[in-house]
């Protein structure tokens, strides 16, 4: 047990400072008492659960909140096992500390990675409160029940609120794990219900603090201008002229780190070279940078041209150029030789940007060896170690304050803007608020990689899909390894389901940095695979739904117990549910079409149907139906929101989002030429959640991949045109 005066940190959560006495329970099972005095001190907190004197319960969410709802859903899991009264629960962001483990938001992993831990935290706290009550009342523990933040003893009529038990509970030794009973799903009171986001009121009233909103006394503003051609190095600039401008405090060159700028979020603290402009406020720096004249050394800069990358990739696929093998099963050559029907089609996708609404912005105080960071990073867990190396300070002297992120989608997994701000802060000797312009954010992203797939299918005389070939053309900086997010990963379908499969790869040189963009690889591969399945069904004259179900088959769970693995029963259930909801096979108005797609990614089995109508090249997406199985539902409202949002985001991206590269530089600079979907283009979205009872998995990503193929399959059924490139604007189509 920790000492009673265990100090705590988390100074940016005002509500926590109201705590005067609490039960703190760490992931290692220790508990501590805390006084108000210690709460105001800085130090370390080992806590997920805090029962406050006013009876409210503060529950800490350890993972970053970037819109996926984890600052509500993770505390809900604790509250369920604790039997805390939800109306009196305060959800708070946990401080960034080693004891909270992997504090990051990515891979739709927050819920599955914390599920056991959060349940145990709640259940152990509940057990201790019950034992305290049993002792106090002199009754057997087993006669006690809990509800609404109270312990109850039915036969005596005793009832005690948790706040009146916490002091005694905190003196009890932590129960053995074996003595802590977790609830059975049928006992859940909270999980599976629709709960409004814990920050809903703060957001609606403008009081929620995002990364961009961090301020401290004495801070200065900074803007950082990098070479448009990725990897160019600033040689000289008219720094004296810029420094003389009103509101400008300093201007200087940062040398940067030589490229290529790989997506190495764990270990990299690389930044690109550029010129920092430091001023008294944001606008002064934005205005001053317009007068900057920088002489760039382009000798190491990227020469990428996205049109050339695409041409090279398509030529490689057409020529069948194979450089490496990714996956092989059965005897593909024989399957194709014996096929009754074969098909062959090539699909292409472009670079896209994250374009999250909050551009990168961070506050860093690194003037001395004691460093503080206020950020909406998706990987706070990796900030301290990398900053320590960059600034040559000890990790223990770095404090990271995690703030809400204005969208993540993978963009905030890399922390290079934090490293830029740290170097600028160190140079000027003051806390620095670095604000990227939207134009910076779009030009210096870790983009979704362009990837190209040539798919071939073999169907036997009895209509079975017996052979599958996939030749991938992947962007690669070194010609030997695919860049992050390019290429293909062996999926259970088709690899473990279709008897004869070959997946091979060819590389296209590209220096443009790429990274994780919502549902990496799946976000482009699903478009190719699920469009091609529909093409095959059409070629052999079968109903697409029947052909898809037949192709998936009924092998059951490909890897028993692995939530990430295909479970054909779960897949079939979502396909059957979504086609039923959408009225698959019904008579449609002229010019309308229904399209279906299924995809498993990030452990989510998701099927979607789109209804579109097409007039010329104008596509109206009227309705999208989603059937999702992500296991046990935690927050139904949050889950439905993610499903609805993924549909809109998927449509937004497939419509006209394309980053073009010329001379190593990004052509698009803002939302005018990189359009996000607007409300008039947005379809009705109908979601059906299949509460299958499996372990819960994440919902931030898996509903996005099936959207593009569902819409393209619907377009084909509406007008007979097969779209094989994303964005569809490249083939002249517009979402209206």
């Amino acid at each position, binding site marked *: 047990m920790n000492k009673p005066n265990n100090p705590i940190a988390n100074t940016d959560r005002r509500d926590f400072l109201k705590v005067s006495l609490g039960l703190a329970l760490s992931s290692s099972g220790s508990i501590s008492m805390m006084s108000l005095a210690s709460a105001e001190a800085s130090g370390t907190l080992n806590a997920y659960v805090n029962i406050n004197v006013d009876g409210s319960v503060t529950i800490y969410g350890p993972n970053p909140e970037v819109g996926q709802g984890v600052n509500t859903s993770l505390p809900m899991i604790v509250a369920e096992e604790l039997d805390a009264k939800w109306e009196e629960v305060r959800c708070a962001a946990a401080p960034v500390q080693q004891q909270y483990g992997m504090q990051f938001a990515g891979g739709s992993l927050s819920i599955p990675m914390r599920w056991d831990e959060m349940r145990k935290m709640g259940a152990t706290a509940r057990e201790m409160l019950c034992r305290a009550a049993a002792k106090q009342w002199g009754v057997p523990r087993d006669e006690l029940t809990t509800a609404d933040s109270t312990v109850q003893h039915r036969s005596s009529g005793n009832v005690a609120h948790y706040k009146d038990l916490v002091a005694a509970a905190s003196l009890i030794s932590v129960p053995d794990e074996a003595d802590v009973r977790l609830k059975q799903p049928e006992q859940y009171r909270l999980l599976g219900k629709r709960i409004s986001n814990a920050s809903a009121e703060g*957001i609606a009233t*403008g009081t929620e603090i995002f990364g961009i909103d961090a301020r401290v006394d004495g801070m200065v503003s900074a803007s950082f201008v990098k070479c448009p051609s990725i990897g160019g190095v600033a040689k000289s600039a008219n720094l004296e002229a810029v420094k003389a401008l009103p509101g400008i405090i300093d201007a200087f060159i940062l040398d940067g780190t030589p490229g290529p700028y790989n997506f190495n979020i764990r270990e990299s603290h690389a930044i690109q070279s550029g010129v920092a402009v430091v001023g008294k406020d944001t606008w002064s720096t934005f205005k001053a940078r317009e007068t900057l004249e920088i002489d760039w050394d382009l000798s190491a800069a990227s020469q990428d041209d996205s049109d050339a990358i695409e041409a090279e990739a398509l030529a490689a696929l057409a020529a069948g150029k194979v450089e490496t093998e990714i996956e092989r099963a059965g005897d593909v050559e024989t399957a194709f030789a014996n096929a009754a029907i074969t098909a062959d089609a090539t699909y292409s996708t472009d670079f896209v940007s994250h374009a*999250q609404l909050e551009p990168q912005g961070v506050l860093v105080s690194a003037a001395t060896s004691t460093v503080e960071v206020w950020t909406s990073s998706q990987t706070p867990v990796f900030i301290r170690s990398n900053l320590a190396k960059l600034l040559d300070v000890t990790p223990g002297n770095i404090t990271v304050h995690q703030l809400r992120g204005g969208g993540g989608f993978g963009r905030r997994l890399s922390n290079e803007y934090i490293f830029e701000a740290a170097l600028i802060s160190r140079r000027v000797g003051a806390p620095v608020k670095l604000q990227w312009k939207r134009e910076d954010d779009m030009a210096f992203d870790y983009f979704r990689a362009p990837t190209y797939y040539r798919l071939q299918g073999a169907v036997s005389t009895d209509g079975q899909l017996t052979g599958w070939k996939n030749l991938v053309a992947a962007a690669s900086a070194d010609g030997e390894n695919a860049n992050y997010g390019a290429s293909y990963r062996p999926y259970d379908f088709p690899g473990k389901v279709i008897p004869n499969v070959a997946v091979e790869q060819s590389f296209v040189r590209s220096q443009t940095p790429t990274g994780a963009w919502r549902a990496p690889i799946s976000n482009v591969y699903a478009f190719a695979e699920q469009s091609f399945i529909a093409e095959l069904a059409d070629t052999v004259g079968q109903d697409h739904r029947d052909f898809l179900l037949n192709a998936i088959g009924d092998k059951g769970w490909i890897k028993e117990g692995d939530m990430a693995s295909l479970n054909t029963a779960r897949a079939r259930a979502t396909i059957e549910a979504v086609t039923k909801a959408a009225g698959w096979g019904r008579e449609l108005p002229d010019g309308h079409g229904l399209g279906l797609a299924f995809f498993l990614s990030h452990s989510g089995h998701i099927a979607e149907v789109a209804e579109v109508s097409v007039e010329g090249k104008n596509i109206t997406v009227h309705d999208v139906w989603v059937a999702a199985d992500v296991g046990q539902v935690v927050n139904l409202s949050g889950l439905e929101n993610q499903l*609805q949002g993924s549909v809109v985001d998927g449509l937004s991206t497939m419509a006209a989002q394309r980053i073009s590269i010329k001379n190593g530089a990004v052509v698009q600079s803002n939302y005018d030429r990189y359009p996000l979907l607007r409300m008039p283009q947005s379809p009705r979205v109908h979601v059906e959640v299949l509460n299958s009872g499996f372990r819960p998995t994440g919902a931030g990503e898996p509903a996005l991949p099936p959207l593009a193929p569902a819409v393209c399959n619907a377009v084909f059924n509406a007008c007979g045109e097969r779209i094989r490139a994303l964005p569809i604007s490249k083939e002249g189509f517009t979402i209206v």
Partner: protein
Amino acid sequence: MTSITINGKQHSLSSIDPTMPLLWALRDHAGIQGVKYGCGVGQCGACTVWLDGFAVRSCQLTIGALEGRAVTTVEGLAGATLHPVQQAWIDHDVAQCGYCQAGQIMSAAALLERNPSPTDDEIEAAMAGNLCRCGTYVRIKSAIKAASGAMTASTLFYNAMEAEQASA
């Protein structure tokens, strides 16, 4: 120096560049941070505020041109209780990341102030300037309809009260 009213309070913004957009004057000099920076070119709507009751993009207005004008931000929208649009946003659990929502709310509230019972097409037209990367349009539309119902009901109530008082 520019003197403007922000959420009902007089502010004198001294030693400020008159070409500074209202957005940055609010955020960096008036302590109003509910208004968000998204694009700086009037494309995304995250910086939407009211100028004399009309929804505007604060990144597109220079502070020097606003002498004597009245600005309302999301922080100033609620009276004794939340504005019906704010309440509807909470009830419908609209937000995901929430970054664009202050702008969405200011556009929606401006619409309903002038047109308490908009059609679907009118809602879409009024909200077309506000982007949401999280894709919460489905819920935004539902919330606006709910707020419309609440506001129409309260307008009818007050109209009836006024008519009663007039006849008394």
